[in-house]
């Protein structure tokens, strides 16, 4: 989560000011040369990072876009050809894409909503607790520290009849992971269990933004705890909440590992990422698979854009202006 964008502090203006009391024209030329040099140094310094970023993100993205415009099936290498947007047509007209799309949207919406509520609760507890603060914070973070695949396997075993302790609680003969709705809820449960701590952590940072005096003032004015929470804390926490929501939504929209382990996408539980994976790695159809990946990328872009537009300046990096 490092901020890669931070350009070198405006060295140019500073040197400009310091030279401002010298001779006019000549000074400016000399200074801008210095500024140029500094800028060049800046670019040189971040060039390695830029190159690495290009190599690991821009190139694969570009290559995926290129592949998505081809008939490129590893099994029919002789028939590779440029097909324009036909792969996109095939994907968008396929019921499987839309099934996966709605499943993904459902899982994202429900799990993020539940996580927000639970995460807020946890954050308040962590913020208010007077003793064992460190222990509690660490304990809350444990699920987040467990590798998702490992956790998913424990869930899977737990829900497998005759094997798991949770399946034992159900009437015999129930195999919840083999039916669409029970499986979807279990996927959401695994997702919520796993990432609520992350949400709580981001919200905890937001709680720290709420000045104690403001709360006390509200209390003096006779605000109930609920009013204080709704009218004072939430508005002040808005930027943190939005950051948390944005991160989690983008994350949840790309859900893969929990589903892959729990149901591998069977019984109508496949997400878009699972669809892309199956088409790339099982069907070996790089054209269709890349089209799916690019479409997921666009969806993620739209989500991020909507968040920033709808909630405006509260986007990450913008809080500074407040």
């Amino acid at each position, binding site marked *: 989560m490092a901020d890669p964008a931070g350009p070198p502090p405006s060295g140019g203006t500073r040197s400009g000011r310091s030279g401002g009391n010298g001779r006019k024209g000549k000074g400016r030329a000399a200074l801008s040369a210095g500024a140029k040099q500094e800028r060049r140094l800046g670019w040189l310094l971040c060039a390695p990072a830029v190159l690495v970023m290009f190599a690991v993100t821009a190139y694969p993205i570009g290559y995926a876009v290129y592949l998505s415009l081809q008939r490129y099936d590893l099994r029919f290498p002789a028939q590779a050809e440029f097909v324009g947007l036909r792969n996109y047509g095939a994907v968008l007209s396929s019921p*499987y894409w839309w099934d996966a799309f709605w499943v993904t949207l459902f899982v994202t919406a429900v799990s993020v909503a539940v996580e927000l509520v639970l995460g807020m609760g946890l954050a308040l507890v962590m913020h208010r607790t007077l003793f064992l603060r460190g222990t509690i914070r660490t304990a809350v973070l444990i699920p987040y520290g467990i590798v998702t695949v490992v956790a998913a396997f424990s869930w899977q075993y737990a829900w497998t009849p005759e094997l798991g302790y949770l399946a034992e609680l159900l009437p015999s003969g129930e195999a919840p992971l083999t039916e669409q709705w029970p499986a979807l809820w279990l996927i959401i449960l695994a997702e919520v269990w796993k990432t609520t701590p992350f949400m709580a952590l981001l919200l905890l940072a937001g709680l720290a933004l709420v000045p104690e005096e403001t709360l006390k003032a509200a209390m003096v004015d006779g605000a109930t705890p609920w009013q204080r929470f709704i009218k004072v804390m939430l508005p002040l926490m808005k930027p943190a909440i939005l950051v948390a929501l944005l991160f989690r939504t983008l994350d949840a929209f790309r859900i893969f590992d929990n589903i892959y382990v729990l149901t591998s996408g069977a019984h109508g539980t496949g997400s878009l990422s699972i669809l892309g994976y199956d088409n790339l790695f099982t069907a070996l159809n790089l054209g269709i698979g890349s089209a799916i990946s690019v479409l997921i990328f666009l969806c993620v872009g739209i989500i991020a854009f909507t968040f920033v537009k709808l909630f405006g300046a509260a986007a990450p990096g913008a809080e500074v202006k407040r």
Partner: protein
Amino acid sequence: MVRRTRALVALTLLASALAACGGDEDSGRPTLDWYNFPDDSGALQRAADRCTEASGGRYRISYRKLPRGADGQRQQLVRRLAAEDDSMDILGLDVTWAAEFAEARWIREWTGETKRRATEGTLRVPLRTATWKDRLYAVPYNTNTQLLWYRKDLVPTPPRTWSEMLNMARGLARQGKPHYVEIQGAQYEGLTVWFNTLVNSAGGSILDPGATEPSLGPPAVRAATIMRDLADSPAADPSLPNQMEDQNRLAMESGVAAFELNYPFVYPSMKANNPRLFRHFRWAPYPRVDAGRPARPTVGGNHLAVSAHSRHPDLAFEAALCLRNRENQLTAALEGGLPPTLRALYDEPAFREAYPFSEEVLAALESGSVRPLTPAYQNVSIVISHTLSPPSAIQPEKAVGTIGEQIDEALRSEGVIP
């Protein structure tokens, strides 16, 4: 300075590690890497050792285990082959992969003398699964097929057709006796195999002979109808839509079923797990669709192929032939429980003793059908199992129409798979 020394050391280590990968290449004896399914019986390792010995120092075979699941095996092979990995020589392929790997130019064609030796005495149907566009791309290693297993205490004479079997099951249900028909109804390749067997038994096929378009037609509608009828009848196990081979085996062993369509591995398992029921456990040929036409159960199994990127193709062909020779196939059959592909072994006393049902298996293999031979088999299989799941919801005409359309798309690389 320290840094540079360290880098040098690292480089040297790396170089020696790389050299180690090539086996004892320095001594002139190349290592052939044989990737195949993980075998717990030790039969495959034994074959590798024997062939290494038999080569007289010309090569060494190193048996490397692939993941357990077929999808995992295929993914690992495909990824490495697509990346032109030259450290794979002999590849163990599922029967359904030969066409795909051949069309992608990942495996070498068998020609001339090696082809003659690979086909000599080999069962015809398994050979067909290793052939693509009239060229041989792999040598059949072992094979498999399903039989009808039933309980003699409940069913005095085994049913000859599907309708007889369903009627018997209904009769048993009325008497309150165990009556389920155990078959693979989950949404996976087993469902495709069931459908393929029925379509072929009804005199049809899923693809046309050139594998360019779906054939299906009325036999496919009949097949889908039989599947739906079973699912709708009292013969259906309530967990049919989630059952695979192993769940079928367990259900039969637990005593709730009267019939089971499954591979021969259920026989030793019943013997070990339920000796009481084992006394009544019998087998018969796979039930027919039409009384007058023999059933054509789908043939399974494993092939050996030579990687297109192997550095020692000639040795690899030879080693593959050795790995599947008479002696090694017999070991695999006796210890690993895998039916052989050499016709002569079905007359071998040791094999017949271990496989009391060897005659029925041989007959099933000789009249068997193959799964759709096409590079797009994965898509075809997924399309079929997806459309026919759950079996109780099949609308035969409509389902066959959907399957036809989606197979057509898959063959043009346009289909999205679920």
